[in-house]
């Protein structure tokens, strides 16, 4: 980002090192970029809220919100306006100051992640050399916000939800962190852009198909990310049937909408991170990053847009999977959640890190083993997806129904 601004200043005929307004340009750019990023987060969260309701409806053989705008697309605008105009209630017995400030902690922890999430080849706010470490650190702020809201609400439901959430997020930070270490080890860097560049455009160049441990690491990461984002089947902190609404029970109006903005925005974060770490991010098949850097003019713009589209496509697929999971699986119990984390995910992620260390030595000695493994795993993955699609079609046909995605919208 800084380099881009410096080049702009140089183009305007000034030397950024000596020009007195350089710092002001930086400040203005920071303001503009943070405005854009927070709006991107808010708008995607809003659109996801609509998309989730439509997906949920179709999976339950319903229609879903379809009246506001084409296909009901503007429903989220109506909901946002409604939430903003509602009264912001603070309970009498609540800790007023903490109650008011807790949603902002959530928002900060959430918005800060976008700083080093890539969007395309060049589009990233700041490509830090400690990117993944930074993301893991900043997401922990959300726990502070949740605990704060639960405690300050002075309601037993809120507190239960907050405590569950803290236990859950702290437990699942460990397998998530260990699973993300595997792509870091393979790429040799913590920078998000560096990890994407170390992969390639074709599926067999993705880290998910690099070796069996990486495939398992992806699954572990995805499960842990669901748990950290309080998504079903790990939505214990806001289990409606048990805790009313969990830590946000006492909230209303705009502050309530912050919590939900964070929840739906988190879907983008976990999905973008998955496609960054395991699925080659914005890489265009057949175009190496070095070639990409060297492109100029209209072709460069075209390639940039293509990389943005590829990244968004991969991310949206994961967002869909997250929604799909929510409307398939029931909520698990607290003890099952803890069992799964400490008895399965933590040992498996540690074993995976060890395995990848050894594997890298083997591949270094005999590169053809790595190639065979990558191709084999890719073929297995393709086979799995095909079998799954056939199974789904069979499910449709077995009930005498037919494939129909377009009617009754």
């Amino acid at each position, binding site marked *: 980002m800084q380099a881009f601004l410096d080049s702009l200043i140089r183009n305007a005929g000034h030397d950024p090192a000596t020009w007195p307004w350089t710092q002001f340009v930086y400040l203005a750019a920071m303001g503009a970029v943070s405005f854009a990023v927070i709006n991107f987060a808010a708008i995607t969260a809003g659109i996801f809220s609509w998309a989730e309701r439509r*997906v949920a*409806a*179709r*999976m*339950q*053989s*319903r*229609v879903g919100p*379809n009246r506001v705008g084409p296909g009901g697309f503007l429903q989220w605008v109506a909901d946002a306006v409604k939430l903003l105009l509602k009264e912001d209630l603070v309970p009498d017995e609540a800790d007023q100051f903490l109650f008011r400030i807790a949603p902002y902690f959530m928002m900060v922890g959430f918005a800060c992640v976008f700083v080093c999430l890539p969007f395309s080849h060049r589009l990233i706010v700041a490509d830090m050399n400690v990117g993944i470490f930074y993301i893991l650190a900043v997401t922990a702020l959300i726990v502070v916000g949740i605990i704060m809201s639960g405690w300050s609400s002075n309601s037993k439901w809120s507190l239960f939800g907050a405590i569950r959430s803290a236990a859950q997020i702290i437990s699942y930070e460990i397998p998530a962190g260990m699973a993300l270490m595997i792509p870091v080890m393979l790429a040799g860097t913590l920078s998000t852009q560096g990890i994407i560049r170390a992969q390639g455009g074709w599926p067999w160049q993705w880290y998910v198909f690099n070796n069996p441990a990486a495939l398992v690491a992806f699954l572990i990461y995805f499960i842990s990310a669901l748990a950290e984002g309080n998504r079903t089947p790990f939505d214990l902190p806001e289990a409606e049937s048990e805790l009313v609404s969990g830590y946000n029970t006492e909230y209303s109006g705009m502050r309530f909408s912050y919590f939900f903005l964070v929840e739906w925005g988190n879907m983008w974060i976990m999905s973008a991170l998955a496609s960054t770490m395991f699925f080659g991010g914005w890489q265009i098949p057949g175009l190496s990053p070095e070639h990409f850097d060297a492109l100029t003019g209209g072709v460069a713009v075209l390639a940039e847009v293509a990389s943005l589209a590829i990244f968004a496509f991969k991310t949206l697929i994961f967002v869909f999977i997250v929604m*799909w*999971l929510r*409307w*398939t*699986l029931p909520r698990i119990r607290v003890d099952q959640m803890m069992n*799964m984390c400490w008895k*399965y995910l933590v040992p498996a992620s540690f074993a995976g890190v060890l395995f990848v260390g050894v594997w890298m030595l083997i591949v270094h000695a005999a590169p053809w083993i790595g190639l065979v493994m990558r191709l084999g795993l890719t073929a297995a993955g393709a086979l799995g997806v095909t079998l*799954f699609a056939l*199974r*789904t*079609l069979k*499910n*449709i046909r077995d009930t005498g*129904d*037919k*494939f*129909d*995605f377009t*009617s*009754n919208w």
Partner: protein
Amino acid sequence: MAEQLAPQRQAPGAFDSYTKPVRDTAKSFWEGMSITLSYMFRKPMTTQYPDRMSVPVSQTIPARYRGFLEVDMDICTACQACERACPIAVINIDIVKGDGKSRPKLNMERFDIDIGKCMYCGLCVEPCPTGAIQHTREFEGATMNFNNLTLRFVPPAAAPWPAYKVPKGSEAFPRRPLGEITRNLMHAWDAPPPPFPTDAEIAELDKKADHGKPKVAGLDPAAMGRQLAAKALEVKADKPKLQKVLEEAMAGTDCGDCGYPDCFGYSDAIAQGKESSTEKCAPGGADSKAMLETILVSLKTGVVPGPAQPDAAKPEAASPAAAEAKPSGPPLAQTLSKEELYKVVLEAMAGTDCGDCEYPDCDGYTKGIVYEGQKDLDRCAPGGEDSRAKLYEIMLGTKPPPK
């Protein structure tokens, strides 16, 4: 316990039992996710009521659904069987009688069904002799004006509406397609509600309203009774002719409410002397009863009674309470001063200020009785029989008349 646990721990299935949840998870993901995804790519079962349906919703519900009631006035015999069957007085029929010559014998001034009150029990449909009243499949009762929920089957412009006379021996009746009439009445709901009348307009309407006065167009049952009695005396010996005279006194709807299949059966039974009750003609009501009595009395005595002296009975009827009561000394109302009387009367009430008496509170009702000459002493609902007895005792010195 220890013996049982120890071999299990060492069982060869330890690895299996550790990996079983993983295998189960994978399997249930495979099955469950493929099922939810398959629903994603099917047509949703729900329909988009009300505006995005391939057929109107009233055609998709069962034929015997009990929706809004509908009356086909063209085959309504005005027997009022439905009105009598209705447990909650939703149906209101006003009958105007004619002599059968210059105008039909039975006419309906009004046939209203308040579907806002209707509980769709269907008891009115069952006794209908011609099937004129039926449930339709219409059910959408949202309206801008509550009064619109009263369906008026006699159009005010066409009133009074002559009753349908059932041809002898007919078993099927031509009925308009079910639902058409009610749907047309409901279309009027789309019109904006009428404005609230001003105070001046209400006063005007009150002046116009002829409460209690007999309808000018109506029949004088006493006069007709005397006419029929004279006729009956002439044909006293000829039973079939007597039967015809008697049948004329009846409503002629062949409703069967009297226990005979039709009006002929009932009148024939009276003419033959097998039936002595004159009260069985439900559609004819008090009029038929009076006429039949006049006829039977004149048949017995051989004399047609002259016109009654309407003024003779009136003074007694004017104050039934005074007539029935047995005075026991002068009432308190005449001995106490107004202030004292006010206290005593207030004491007699329940004191809940419920407002049921149409005064704002007990104080208001008491003042009404003591100072403003309110004659109605029956209004204290929470006080019940107790308050009533006390009030009558104080104000009139009598026991209250039975309710």
